[in-house]
C-alpha cells in the first residue's frame, strides 16, 4: 500500500503575516493517478500547490515524495525531483520560439556551438507526440493559442522527466475544443505513469477526470475520496461549505432608502461581463459573489471607467452619468477600492497622511490651495476610528502591516465622501480584529446614506455584512439572495451554476 503513495502531505502549515493559509493539512496522493484538489477561493489550494512546487516553503510539516522527506526552495529544485508545475498564468518566454521555450536551459550543444538541427528535430518529435502537428519549432510562442502554449509547457516538464505534473486551473482560459485536447493529453500522461495533480473550480471537469478528489476548506483538509458514483457535484459542494458562521458585521441594521445608483446592461469584452444590471439603494450594502474569473472585478472596473465597457449605462440618483475615466467616476461620487492595494491603491513610498488625503485632494484644499491642517485633521479622524497602528502620520505606508495598509486605503476612499463605494475584497490578507473594524466603518458610512457594493471570496464575510447578495457566474447575474435566505450552499450552487437543489 505504502508503495502506492507517491506524495504524502503531512501536517503542512503555512502562515503569512496576519493570515494562516494552511492549518496542518495531511493527505496522500496515489502513484499514477489524476488527483483533483477543490475548495472555495482562499481555501488554501494555491498555497499548497506553491509549497509542492517550491515557490514557497511550508512553515511546518513535511512533504514526502517517494518515501523521502523533501523541502523545495525553488521550482528548479522541485523539478529536479520530478515535480513540475504549469501555472495558471503561463510563465514562458513569449518572444522566443517554441524550440527555445521547450529546451530552455538544456539546448543541445555540438562542438561548443548550438546544434540547431538537433534542436529543431527534437522539438518536432515532441510536438508530434503531443499532437501539435500544426505547430512549427520556429513559431513564436506569442503567436500560439493559449491551449497550445499550455501543452508545450507540459511537454517541457516531461522532457525534464517530471513524474508529477501540477496543473493549476489549466482550463480557465481555454476553449472547449482545447479543453478536450488537454484531457486527452492528461489520459496519455496517466498511461505513461505520470501522476497529475489538478486544481479546478469546475466540478464537472473534476468529476470527469479525477481518480481521487481532495477537498480543502479554510486551510484545512476536509476529505480525500475516490471518485466513485456516489461522489456527486452537490456532494462536493457540501464538502466545500458547511462551516459555522462566527461573524456579525451588522447586516441589515440600516434602512434602505431611495435608489442611489443603477447599473444597466453592463457588458465588457465579449463574455467577461454580460448584460449585468442592478440597483443600489441608499443605506445598503450589496455583496457580489462569484468564483474568481466570473467577471466581478471587471464589472467594477467598467463602472468606474478603469476598463472601457462595451456597452451599458450607470445612473446616479436617476441621472445618467457619462463615465469615461476614473476622474469622471470621482466627479459622479463613485469610488473604487481595488483588491490590489499595493499596485492599484496605495502610494507605498508616501506617508500615511498623504495616502489618506489622496482621493480627496480637492475636498481638502481651498480654492486650489492645499490645506495641510485639514489633511492632518482628516487623517487623524480615520486613524482614530479604525485604530490604525502607526508611529505617526509621516510614517511611510510601505512599512505598515497588510491590515493597517488596508485601513489606510479605506480611509483614503471614505475621505472623499463618495456616494457609492465599490470595494473589491475589503479584507484580503487582514486579521479578524481588523476585519471587524473595517466592516463597522463601512456600515457607519452606509448609515449616513451612502451605498456600498462589496466583492468578497469569503462567503461568511459576505453573509455577515451584506443586505443583499448577487451571485455572478461567467459574467451573468445568476441570482439574488435576500438577507435571511443566505446559505453557503445556495450561493455556491449559483456560483458554480449547479442548478439542482442542494441540501
Amino acid at each position, binding site marked *: 500500500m505504502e508503495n502506492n503513495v507517491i506524495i504524502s502531505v503531512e501536517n503542512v502549515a503555512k502562515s503569512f503575516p496576519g493570515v494562516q493559509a494552511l492549518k496542518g493539512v495531511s493527505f496522500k496522493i496515489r502513484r499514477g493517478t489524476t488527483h483533483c484538489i477543490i475548495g472555495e477561493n482562499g481555501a488554501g489550494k494555491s498555497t499548497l500547490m506553491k509549497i509542492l512546487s517550491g515557490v514557497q516553503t511550508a512553515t511546518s510539516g513535511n512533504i514526502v515524495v517517494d518515501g523521502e522527506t523533501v523541502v523545495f526552495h525553488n521550482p528548479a529544485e522541485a523539478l529536479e525531483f520530478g515535480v513540475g508545475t504549469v501555472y495558471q498564468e503561463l510563465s514562458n518566454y513569449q518572444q522566443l520560439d517554441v524550440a527555445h521555450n521547450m529546451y530552455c536551459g538544456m539546448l543541445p550543444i555540438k562542438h561548443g556551438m548550438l546544434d540547431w538541427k538537433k534542436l529543431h528535430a527534437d522539438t518536432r518529435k515532441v510536438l508530434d507526440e503531443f499532437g501539435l502537428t500544426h505547430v512549427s519549432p520556429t513559431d513564436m510562442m506569442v503567436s500560439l493559442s493559449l491551449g497550445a502554449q499550455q501543452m508545450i509547457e507540459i511537454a517541457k516538464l516531461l522532457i525534464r522527466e517530471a513524474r508529477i505534473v501540477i496543473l493549476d486551473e489549466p482550463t480557465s482560459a481555454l476553449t472547449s475544443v482545447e479543453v478536450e485536447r488537454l484531457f486527452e493529453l492528461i489520459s496519455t500522461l496517466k498511461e505513461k505513469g505520470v501522476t497529475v495533480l489538478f486544481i479546478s473550480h469546475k466540478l464537472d471537469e473534476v468529476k470527469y477526470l479525477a481518480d481521487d478528489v481532495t477537498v480543502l476548506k479554510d486551510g484545512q483538509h476536509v476529505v480525500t475520496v475516490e471518485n466513485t458514483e456516489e461522489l456527486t457535484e452537490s456532494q462536493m459542494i457540501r464538502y466545500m461549505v458547511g462551516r459555522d458562521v462566527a461573524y456579525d458585521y451588522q447586516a441589515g441594521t440600516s434602512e434602505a432608502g431611495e435608489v442611489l445608483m443603477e447599473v444597466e446592461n453592463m457588458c465588457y469584452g465579449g463574455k467577461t461581463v454580460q448584460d449585468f444590471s442592478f440597483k443600489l439603494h441608499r443605506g445598503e450594502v450589496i455583496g457580489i459573489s462569484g468564483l474568481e474569473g466570473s467577471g466581478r472585478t471587471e464589472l467594477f472596473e467598467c463602472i*468606474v471607467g478603469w476598463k472601457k465597457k462595451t456597452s451599458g449605462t450607470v445612473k446616479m440618483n436617476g441621472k445618467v452619468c457619462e463615465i469615461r475615466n476614473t476622474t469622471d467616476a*470621482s*466627479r459622479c461620487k463613485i469610488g473604487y477600492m481595488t483588491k490590489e492595494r499595493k499596485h492599484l491603491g496605495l502610494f507605498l513610498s508616501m506617508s500615511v497622511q*498623504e495616502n489618506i488625503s489622496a482621493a480627496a*485632494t*480637492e475636498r481638502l484644499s481651498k480654492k486650489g490651495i492645499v490645506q495641510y491642517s485639514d489633511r492632518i485633521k482628516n487623517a487623524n479622524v480615520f486613524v482614530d476610528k479604525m485604530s490604525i497602528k502607526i508611529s505617526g502620520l509621516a510614517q511611510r505606508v510601505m512599512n505598515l502591516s497588510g491590515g493597517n495598509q488596508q485601513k489606510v486605503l479605506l480611509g*483614503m476612499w471614505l475621505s472623499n465622501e463618495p456616494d457609492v463605494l465599490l470595494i473589491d475584497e475589503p479584507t484580503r490578507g487582514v486579521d479578524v480584529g481588523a476585519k471587524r473594524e473595517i466592516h463597522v466603518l463601512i456600515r457607519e458610512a452606509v448609515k449616513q446614506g451612502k451605498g456600498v457594493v462589496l466583492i468578497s471570496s469569503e462567503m461568511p464575510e459576505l453573509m455577515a455584512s451584506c443586505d443583499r447578495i448577487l451571485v455572478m457566474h461567467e459574467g451573468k447575474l445568476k441570482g439574488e439572495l435576500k438577507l435571511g435566505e443566505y446559505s453557503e450552499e445556495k450561493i455556491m450552487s449559483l456560483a458554480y451554476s449547479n442548478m439542482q437543489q442542494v441540501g
Partner: protein
Amino acid sequence: MQLKEKNGIEKKQSRMMRLVMFAIDRREVTLVILILALGAFLTWVSPNFLSAANFSVMLNAIGTDIIVAVPMAFCMIAGHSDFSVGSNVCLSSILAGMAMNAGASPIVGILIGLACGAILGYIMGFAVNHKVPTFVATLGGMYAYRGIAMVLCGATSITGFERSFLNLGRFTIAGIRAPIIYAAIMIIIGHFVLKYVNFFHNAYYIGSNVSSATLAGINSKKYLSVAFTLTGLFCGVAGLVLCARVGSVSVNTATDLHFKNIVGLMVGGVSNHGGTGSLIGGMLGILFMQMLDNALVMLYIDPNYNQIFIGAILILAVALDQFVSDYRAKVHT
C-alpha cells in the same frame, strides 16, 4: 560564536546605513553642508572664490538653467525626465531672433519665442500621454528640435537685436543681474506652487504610483500635458533671457542643458522615478553641481575632465538612491 560575530557586523552596518539614510532623507541639509564645505575648500585654495565677481559669474550662468529646471522638476516628480529642453531653448530663441531680425518688434519676437516653446513642450506631453515612453519621446524631441534649428539657422549666429530687447537679460537691481533675479522668482513661485497648489502637488501622487493616482480620481494625463507645456514655455523664457544676455543665438545654444539640469535635480533628491524630492533640494543640487564646475576651473583642471565628473556623479547619485530604497524595502519586509 560565529552568530554573534555576524550580528556584530550587522549592527555596525546598520548604524552606517542609518547615517546614510539620514543624509539621503535630509537632502537639503546634506547639500547645504556639502556646498559650505566645498566653498570653504575653494576659498582656501583660491581667495578669488569669495569675490563678488566670481559669484556673480557663477550664479549668472545657472540663472537661465534654473528657469528651465523649476518646471522640469514638476515633470520629474511626476516621473518624467524631459531631455528635449536644451533643443527647445535653442529653437524657440532662434525663431524669436529670426522674427526680430526680419523686422518684428521685440514684443512680437518675445511672444513668438514663448509660443514656440510652449508648443514644443506640448508636443512632448502629447506623445507621453499617447504611450510613447518619455525617454524615447523627449530624446526624439531633443534631436528633431535641434535639427530644425540647424536647418533654419545653419552655421551662422543671429545677432543685432534692439537695445530694449537686450536689456531684458542685462538689467541689474541693486547690483544683482537679471538672470539671477528671474531664477529667484522662479524658485519662490515654484516652491509655493508645488507645495500648496493642489493641482501641482498631485505630481507626487502621480510620480509615486500613476495607477493608484488615476484610480483616486487624479487626472494624470491632464497634469502631464500641463507640466510638459509649462516646461516648454519656460524653455522659451530661458531662451529669450539667454539670447538677450549673450546678445546672440546659434545652433550651439544650450546643448547640454537637459543633462546638467537632470543631474543637478537628481543629486538634489528629485528622483527620476518620481514621487520624491523638493524644489529647494533640486535647486541646491544644481547649485552644487555648478560649484563643482567652478571648482574645476579654479583648480586649473582641463575643462574636458568636467564631463567625466558630471557623468560619474550622476551614476553615483542614482546608485546611492537605488541602494537606499532597496535597503528600505528589505529592512521592512
